[in-house]
């Protein structure tokens, strides 16, 4: 499945190029909910905006927005503007599919209302946006597979293309940090101290980030602005119901998934989920130690820089993997000081320059989901 174009924006206005500059220069780009919980009782902000305002760096995407749905509209407008300028030729939506991947969508908009007014907070975002912008896609659907939503969206896009149900498929992924999400991760006591340190011995939790990303997949049209064709060669996911809240300490699901799909073959770098929670990073590292016993495959992660963007994180890592293949460099985990002594994998904290032709991007999510895909150079 060929990658035709991509777009990315964080809700504080950082685009793809700025993110790439930041991640190689050790800067944090996130607009993130990063404070450690100060009370044992979970916080619940009384409104979406109180939750949003708790986060630093107020964003232009929140201006002129009366609801979470409006923020999505603003982000989507920016994303489609980028996609149109990044994609050769015109979009013919009638021949395209659209997959919106989100963990929680605009849930805040529906809290505190009467039950008879319930609506799907994810599908309603997509449906109302496509209606408002008169975008008549041949096919559209929403995916909500927790933090692996992007991976599952890519899986489905591949199937649609293989079945010729669409000539191209746009996968767009986004989640907002409103009161609901902030309170939820607070209740899980999953939030870490800034800066977070994936795979570090002193890591203590994650950092929430907020972004919207999109990738256009297809078969017939060549990519723009790059001499290297890049595609997804393999994608898969699995659910281990015994690991609903916490991944298996030995990385069993991820190991089995990658092994069974042959995703380990020819890999020369890994972009891990790397949330910086003790359980996630250990589980991933153990899976990779079993897959690559020589521990010679460099592993990195992006969430120290952009935060955990939940449903969008897989697409963001795909965009970063594309840059690595094009530029011949792999970004570091700049906040990593001392690797966890229980982890033997080759986790990098300095930029690595080399030719990369096959990058594995993995993800673990609530509900016991493990997902991965290979991004490869066609050359």
């Amino acid at each position, binding site marked *: 499945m060929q990658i035709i174009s991509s777009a990315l924006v964080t809700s504080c206005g950082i685009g793809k190029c700025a993110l790439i500059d930041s991640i190689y220069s050790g800067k944090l780009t996130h607009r993130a909910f990063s404070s450690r919980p100060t009370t044992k009782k979970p916080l619940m902000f009384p409104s979406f905006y109180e939750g949003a305002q708790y986060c630093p760096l107020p964003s232009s995407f929140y201006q002129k927005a009366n609801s979470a749905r409006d923020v999505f509209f603003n982000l989507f407008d920016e994303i489609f503007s980028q996609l149109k300028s990044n994609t050769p030729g015109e979009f013919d939506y009638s021949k395209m599919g659209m997959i919106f991947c989100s963990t929680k969508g605009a849930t805040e908009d529906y809290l505190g209302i009467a039950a008879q007014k319930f609506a799907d907070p994810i599908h309603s975002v997509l449906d109302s946006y496509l209606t408002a912008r008169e975008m008549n896609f041949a096919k559209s659907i929403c995916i909500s597979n927790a933090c692996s939503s992007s991976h599952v969206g890519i899986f489905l896009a591949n199937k649609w293309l293989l*079945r010729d149900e669409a000539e191209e498929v746009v996968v767009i992924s986004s989640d907002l940090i409103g009161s609901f999400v902030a309170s939820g991760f607070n209740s899980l006591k999953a939030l870490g101290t800034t800066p977070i340190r994936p795979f570090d011995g002193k890591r203590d939790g994650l950092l929430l980030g907020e972004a919207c990303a999109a990738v256009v997949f297809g078969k017939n049209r060549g990519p723009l602005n790059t001499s290297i064709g890049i595609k997804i060669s393999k994608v898969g996911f699995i659910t281990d119901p015994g690991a609903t809240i916490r991944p298996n300490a030995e990385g069993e699901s991820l190991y089995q998934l990658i092994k069974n799909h042959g995703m380990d073959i020819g890999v020369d770098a890994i972009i891990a989920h790397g949330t910086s929670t003790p359980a996630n990073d250990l589980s991933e590292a153990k899976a990779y130690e079993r897959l690559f016993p020589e521990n010679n495959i460099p592993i990195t992660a992006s969430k120290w820089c952009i935060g955990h963007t939940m449903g969008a994180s897989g697409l963001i890592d795909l965009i970063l993997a594309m840059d690595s293949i094009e530029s011949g460099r792999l970004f570091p985990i700049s906040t990593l000081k001392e690797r966890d002594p229980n982890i033997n994998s080759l986790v990098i904290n300095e930029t690595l320059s080399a030719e990369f032709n096959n990058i594995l991007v993995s993800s673990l999510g609530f509900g016991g989901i493990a997902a991965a895909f290979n991004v490869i150079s066609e050359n």
Partner: protein
Amino acid sequence: MYYLQCLTQSVVLNKKIVPKWAQKIKRWNQLDGAAFTLAEVSHPLKKEILGTELVVLSSSLSSIQTDHEFYRSPSAAKFVHTLPNVRATALLQVCELKVPVLSVENGQHSLFSALEEAISLVYDGSYKKVLIASIELIENDQYRWDIFTININGPYFKSPHSIDYYCTALDDGGAEKNYLDNNTLRQLLFTDLRTQRFIRVGHFQLKTMEN
């Protein structure tokens, strides 16, 4: 021939009675209504569900009721169940499955989008047996659930279209004619395991046919 089985019923929760499958799920009493319901209704179907390679979960209202419960009284256990895909894990646990869960949402068309994707994924050879689980809130603590399995067992549709296409073909009684004319549809047969009556898909609602 291909077989698509369906069970449809609404369920009123009673979480005060220890379920038969309790030993399969730690802290079963922390499941949200949707997850509890799916576990309750899938447990007796374990034999029919055996061999499933993919679960397609359909939620037309996402997890909005659980979102409200978390909003009213936040806790870690409730938050986990506000992630729509998580509700399927209870089904997987009681049926002892370790397979991918594809969690789709398409508003009022969710069930039919789930059916369409599942049929297509069997048709294209990706999976041999797919389970579609749809859970819809009717009112407080009452859910309508639909569980389908699609089995590979013979010729399939030549090319997948939308579920509307199949419905139209069936509703005018033209399934056989459609197949003869277009070589696209052999048979679309839903069997209600509870009543042993055939069910077929209508326009965005399930209709029950007399034998």
